[in-house]
């Protein structure tokens, strides 16, 4: 197989231009400055909380009620203000599509 090793490892990935979150490619420590590629360039961001592998952090501050954008589309709405570099997950992000479990 062709060796497609990147020139340098990135710490997070942005799936589409216009995304307001990045996804961690490794566990990130609170306060770490992480590298990611965005708009064709390598940029740095600081995460203000610990972000586990595969979890998201905000690229900009996100206001309560704003759409959170990943893959170029809304993946839900922020239920609280989220600082730039903050963890974005079920504690501050709600689905527009989900339905609560019906009691039986």
């Amino acid at each position, binding site marked *: 197989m*062709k060796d497609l090793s990147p020139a340098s490892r990135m710490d*997070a990935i942005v799936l589409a231009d216009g995304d307001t979150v990045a996804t961690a490619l490794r566990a990130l420590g609170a306060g770490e400055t992480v590298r990611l590629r965005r708009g064709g360039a390598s940029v740095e961001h600081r995460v203000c909380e610990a972000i586990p592998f595969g979890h998201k952090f905000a690229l900009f501050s996100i206001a309560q009620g704003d759409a959170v954008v990943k893959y170029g*589309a809304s993946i839900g709405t922020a239920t609280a203000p989220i600082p730039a570099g903050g963890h974005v997950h079920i504690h501050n*992000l709600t689905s527009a599509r*989900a339905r609560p479990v019906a009691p039986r």
Partner: protein
Amino acid sequence: MLSFAGYHRPDGRIGVRNRLLVLSVGGLTGPVARRIAAGLRDAACVVLPFEAGLIGQDKRVHDRAALGLAAHPNIGAALVVGDNAQVLAALSDQLGACHQPHVVISMDDCDNDVFRMQEAGLRQGARLIHQISRQRRAPAPLSALVLGLECGRSDPSSGIAANPLLGRVADRLIDQGGTAILGETVEWLGAEHLLAARARSTQTGDAISAAVARREAEAMAAGVDLLGRNPTPTNIAAGLSTIEEKSLGSVAKSGTQPVEGMLDYAQTPPHPGLWVMDAPAFAPESLTGFVAAGAQLILFTTGVGNSYVSALAPTLKVSANPDTCTRLSDQIDLRADTALLGGDIPAPMVDAVLGQLAQVASGDLTWGEILGEGDEVVSRFGAAL
């Protein structure tokens, strides 16, 4: 412009392999079909277990799939066995119409003697293989390819790297005039409005929304709440927050091209471009839907590992999980972990994948072909008589 070397078939399609298919129409001749295929060089065997008693949608799908598999461009010739002479005669007429070399053998032809069917199958199969061995590969454009897109045993690496990589490959193939098919309807749930927004016509957009709603309703009627506990606790621990995010990660396989239309299960795309197929998500059924529709190749992402492939369409297993790629290096055909590590899917990576696709189309074997990890399973939807 990339090209590959394939088998130019009389119906105008181009195959990437040139095998004999031993097809059992109905499970009554399944065991003897397997014995026949086992006795012949590089013969593929597909047993369609259901036949008599199929009605309505099941009958239509079964007949469509049987023809789609027997006439497939990756198949140089078909040896069809079954217990119903009329069914076999009808299929033979259809295969004749598309000029697919074939022989049909029914139990009537053998006086219901399975030993005679086995001997006749071996003899006729051998003659067909002898005949098709004279076929040679010739240059063909990538536009001749119909690519199936699948994911299974996904993990976080699937949605953030492997599936987006497939999407970029699908975009490029369609730019070159090729065709790609996304299935697994239930995995559009939460992102179906975005797929619908990419549809060429409002009709298609409505069909996409309706297909998802239908599946939701069927699940609910059976007591399965697709939205109630989705994403699952495992998904949540892995970082998926909402159903939209989970589905977007799956639908990312389809790239960004417009959706030409929605296909029924095993229905052939009427023209090139990106198509969605209303189909089950389970890989054996899903892959056969693509293959019976004419897909010559499949790109199949996995997170933690999944060895299953199509029996008739070379299937490239793709993973972006570095551990999976290392541990299962002789089951994963395409490492996408470089996309994960590099935080990006650069154009040269997409070029390399297209190049590998062309190589496999031209004869490079996939691990699944070498191991024989493939099968074909036609979906069932209703009751049989």
